[in-house]
């Protein structure tokens, strides 16, 4: 990695500094090397990107709008707040940007079966969607805890023809769904392509998912230049595994005037120990194919994460984020369940946009910093998902049974 850029990584073995890598079982290794070859070729192939951008335009609905949140800006009384509206994408979140890219890679490799893990169900739905579109059988692993709290998405996946497999091991949420998907993959290596839903996993996943999501940041930059004639001062995104955040951040990494902030889920508060803030509350370790910050105990056992948002309920974070944190280029902060809920309600009432609980965490941080900033300060926040899937969870917090 060159000294003067934050955007060059990873190296050819998938390392971002000490993070990343390929910590997988030998059975998977030849396939992962194959995937890397296919990806590196596709990356240099204009036809691949034509297909990607064509689907992005006609199927996903890109570019997503950049929206000036006028009432929220006035309410908070400080910085000008823009939303990058990836919640308007087909299927309701940024996850589809990545699944469109990966299904094209699966096709290139001649794979005949797709698997995925999901937490909030958004990645599962986005995967089931492209599988329907490309006529490939799809199996989605989902923890039973998440199946309960994201029921609408479970039904959507089934409507799309996917098989949803219930994961009852461990903490019954995203980390365990990932374990189960890896077990399936190792059993069906020849036929199966694993569409990982975030910028984690063994190399080249963190890199390729980032490249598919970086469309968010590139569009945002262009759109801000068009309306404001300059770069934003701050960009903000929530972090589960970190894909929507990396997608927004990456094109801004070398713009040193831009403050970059990732918001992790603080659950019931960092000090309660019940949170999902891997950088704020974890330390480096190795899980799911890469070295990164992890929530773990003194013995290196992985600790269950806690968040009201199923999509942030993961005890790790993509390795590039771990590296950017250590470099000091990106600041990682956190927002609690309660703060996210407050942001959820405020955004719904002021802007007529019901956000997913994941970006509600990003918004919670925007609410903390915007009032003290001058009115010529531009914040761009990734509104990476819509809240339809979360109405049950939010109703429950109000004692309403839908």
């Amino acid at each position, binding site marked *: 990695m060159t000294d003067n850029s934050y955007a060059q990584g990873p190296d050819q073995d998938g390392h971002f500094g000490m993070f990343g890598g390929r910590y997988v*079982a030998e059975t998977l*290794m030849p396939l992962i090397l194959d995937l890397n070859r296919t990806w590196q070729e596709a990356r240099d192939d204009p036809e691949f990107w034509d297909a990607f951008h064509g689907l992005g335009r006609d199927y996903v609905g890109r570019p997503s709008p950049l929206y000036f949140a006028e009432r929220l800006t006035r309410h908070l009384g400080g910085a000008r707040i823009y939303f990058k509206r990836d919640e308007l994408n087909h299927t309701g979140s940024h996850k589809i940007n990545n699944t469109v890219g990966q299904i094209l890679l699966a096709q290139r490799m001649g794979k005949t079966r797709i698997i995925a893990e999901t937490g909030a169900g958004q990645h599962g739905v986005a995967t089931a969607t492209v599988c329907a579109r490309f006529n490939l059988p799809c199996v989605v692993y989902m923890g039973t805890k998440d199946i309960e709290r994201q029921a609408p998405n479970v039904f959507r996946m089934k409507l799309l023809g996917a098989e949803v497999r219930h994961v009852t091991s461990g903490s019954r949420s995203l980390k365990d769904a990932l374990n189960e998907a*890896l077990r399936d993959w190792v059993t069906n*290596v020849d036929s199966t392509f694993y569409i990982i839903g975030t910028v984690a996993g063994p190399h080249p996943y963190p890199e390729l998912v980032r490249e598919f999501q970086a469309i968010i940041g590139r569009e945002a930059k262009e759109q801000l230049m068009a309306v404001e004639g300059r770069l934003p001062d701050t960009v903000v995104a929530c972090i589960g595994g970190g894909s929507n955040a990396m997608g927004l951040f990456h094109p801004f990494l070398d713009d040193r005037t831009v403050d970059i902030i990732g918001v992790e889920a603080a659950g019931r508060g960092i000090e309660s120990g019940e949170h999902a803030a891997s950088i704020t509350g974890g330390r480096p370790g190795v899980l799911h194919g890469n070295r990164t910050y992890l929530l773990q105990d003194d*013995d*290196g*056992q992985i600790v269950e994460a806690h968040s009201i948002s199923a999509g942030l309920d993961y005890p790790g974070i993509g390795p590039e984020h771990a590296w950017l944190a250590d470099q000091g280029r990106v600041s990682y902060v956190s927002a609690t369940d309660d703060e996210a809920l407050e942001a959820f309600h405020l955004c719904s009432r002021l802007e007529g946009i019901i956000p997913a609980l994941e970006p509600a965490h990003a918004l919670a941080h925007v609410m903390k910093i915007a009032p003290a900033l001058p009115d010529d300060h531009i914040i761009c926040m990734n509104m990476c998902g819509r809240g339809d899937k979360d109405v049950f969870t939010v109703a429950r917090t109000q004692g309403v049974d839908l």
Partner: protein
Amino acid sequence: MTGTRIDRRFADLAGQRRAGLAAFVTAGDPDPILSARLVAGLPGAGADIIEIGMPFTDPMADGPVIQASSQRALKAGMTLAGTIDLVRQVRRHDDDTPIVLMGYYNPIYSYGNDAFLEDAVDAGVDGLILVDLPSEEDRELCLPAVEAGLNWIRLATPTTDSKRLPDVLAHASGFVYYVSITGITGTHAATSQTIASAVDRLRRHTDLPVAVGFGIRNGEQAAGIARIADAVVVGSAFCQAVADGLDNGKGTDASIDNALTLCEAISYDVRKARA
């Protein structure tokens, strides 16, 4: 005396013209005290090599049986330090049986690689099998472990093609562990015919002894492998035997007796397989 306990044991087995039985159990399953009794009892029940699983919350290459075994051990308070201590206890009475630790990298990384290697060697560990450290990550722990005098036991699988084998075997020592299926522990077994051709292929690339495991659960299957390979690895079947002896989720003498009885039976079949 040359080489490690593993080298000596395989030389011994070759002299007896029979395959060895490698028995896998999880450290701390069903609880640390019963686990120490089980491990100490394995050589007497016919195990030639002991593989001790280091319990981990997220055993990505393991099926439900070993997952449950790992969970029981963790719930009973097992740690990596406890696993090393278990080896130390067994070594007080047994200085010959090779002991291999098998598991996932994170607990070791958390313990500190240097401290772990020092303590493992000191306790009498002979070799390591790390599921999630492929040859691409050899600098991480493999090279330091070899430097520290431990055997690095490499997993080879049906997907490890001939092009890749030289890299995979580059720093291997002790023996090579052939994973007979693409999949997780405790599911089906491959046919002896496919295993035989895979073992032949391995032997063309290495002089190390070859052990075969994954999916072998009874004496008959074990005997089939014992005619082909230098050692047979049985794991899930022992962990299931421990589980079968649980009473209300708690380990009992039956957990230990079940596993040791099964070990005797499989060992009997392994020993007479080539007779």
